[in-house]
């Protein structure tokens, strides 16, 4: 592809909302934004402050991930005992009960998915700056994977909310949420925001305009 053709290709902007492709306008006045002529959505070559916002959310999520795992997410009280359950503890109990399949599901949702999201988004944000040409296609796929599985980390939050709402038998048996749940919910929300603030188009910055590249 010639340089001229590549330059032309980069001056097109796709609308995130309706999909219409428009020519990028020359904006000489700061503060003005180009809008999609069909749906009015703001058109940008990249999301604003994409890297800064991604890093901020990823780092905050990574910090909160420590109390989310160390503090109990659920507190159970019965006539005889008062138990505190952490995320890993709950999975261990399921495993000991013989529910290996469920233990695996909860492990994937509560441990693997948040770690994948924090690790993958950190890697994606770092490589944009420091290894822009490294495995672009795999990085694009990694981003789509993170986007697709992100929801599942809410699983344990729902379970604790449901258990706390139904197990209300006073001193006989009751379930409450622990501080760890608050931290874990924050981790889930922060990683969702991190995913949305990252712009996968940054992976392809200065890449050949067409054809697969390794």
């Amino acid at each position, binding site marked *: 592809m010639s340089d001229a053709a590549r330059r032309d290709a980069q001056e097109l902007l796709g609308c995130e909302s309706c999909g219409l492709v428009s020519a990028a306008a020359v904006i000489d006045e700061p503060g003005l934004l180009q809008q999609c002529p069909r749906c009015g*959505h703001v058109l940008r070559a990249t999301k604003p402050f994409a890297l800064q916002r991604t890093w901020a959310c990823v780092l905050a999520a990574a910090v909160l991930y420590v109390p989310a795992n160390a503090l109990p997410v659920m507190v159970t009280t019965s006539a005889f005992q008062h138990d505190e359950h952490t995320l890993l503890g709950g999975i261990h109990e399921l495993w000991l009960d013989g529910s290996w399949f469920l233990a695996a599901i909860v492990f994937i949702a509560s441990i693997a998915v948040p770690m994948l999201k924090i690790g993958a988004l950190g890697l994606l944000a770092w490589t944009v700056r420091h290894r822009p040409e490294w495995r672009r296609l795999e990085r694009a796929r990694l981003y789509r994977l993170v986007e697709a599985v992100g929801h599942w980390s809410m699983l344990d939050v729902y379970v604790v909310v449901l258990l706390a709402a*139904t197990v209300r038998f006073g001193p006989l048996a009751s379930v409450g949420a622990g501080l760890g749940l608050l931290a874990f919910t924050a981790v889930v929300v922060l990683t969702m925001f991190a995913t949305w603030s990252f712009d996968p188009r940054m992976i392809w910055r200065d890449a050949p305009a067409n054809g697969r590249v390794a």
Partner: protein
Amino acid sequence: MARCSRCDAVIGRSHRLTIGSVLALTVAAAAVYLIAVSAPLMTLTLRGPTESATVVEAILSAWRDGEPLVAVVAAATALVAPAAFVGLRLYVLFPLSLGSKPPGFAWCVRALRQAERWNMVEVFTIGVLLSLVRLAGLADASPGPGLFAMGALTVLFASIASAGLKHLWWSVQ
């Protein structure tokens, strides 16, 4: 199915669902949604006393127990986003099926994108199932009609979402 030649992302699919069939599915989803949020998800019996909870009750009890952030996030993902998913689609699709474009169409399509991002009905359904299993050892737990409605809603939402949002623009021109 069309894929990006550079990054391999899916950029378009053939749409077997017409505006009319998506509207039909959305009306069904609206009815199922009302059952899903108002019927008990599960019932628990422990030596006599019985407890049951709907989605709304579960979220309210999290709020009262001093977990406002958890309650707000759960409400946004299991209650508000699904409601917006259904409500905004009904508002957009009824006029479209009659051949006119409703006021605020562009805003609605953008809001629908956000609703799809925040909607976690599928995760919530698995969460209810998981709670039932964890309760089975402690007390007599049985699934309620709300759980079945949640499961049906998950399937309906997946079929509705497969029709896509961007192609709504093709039908207004």
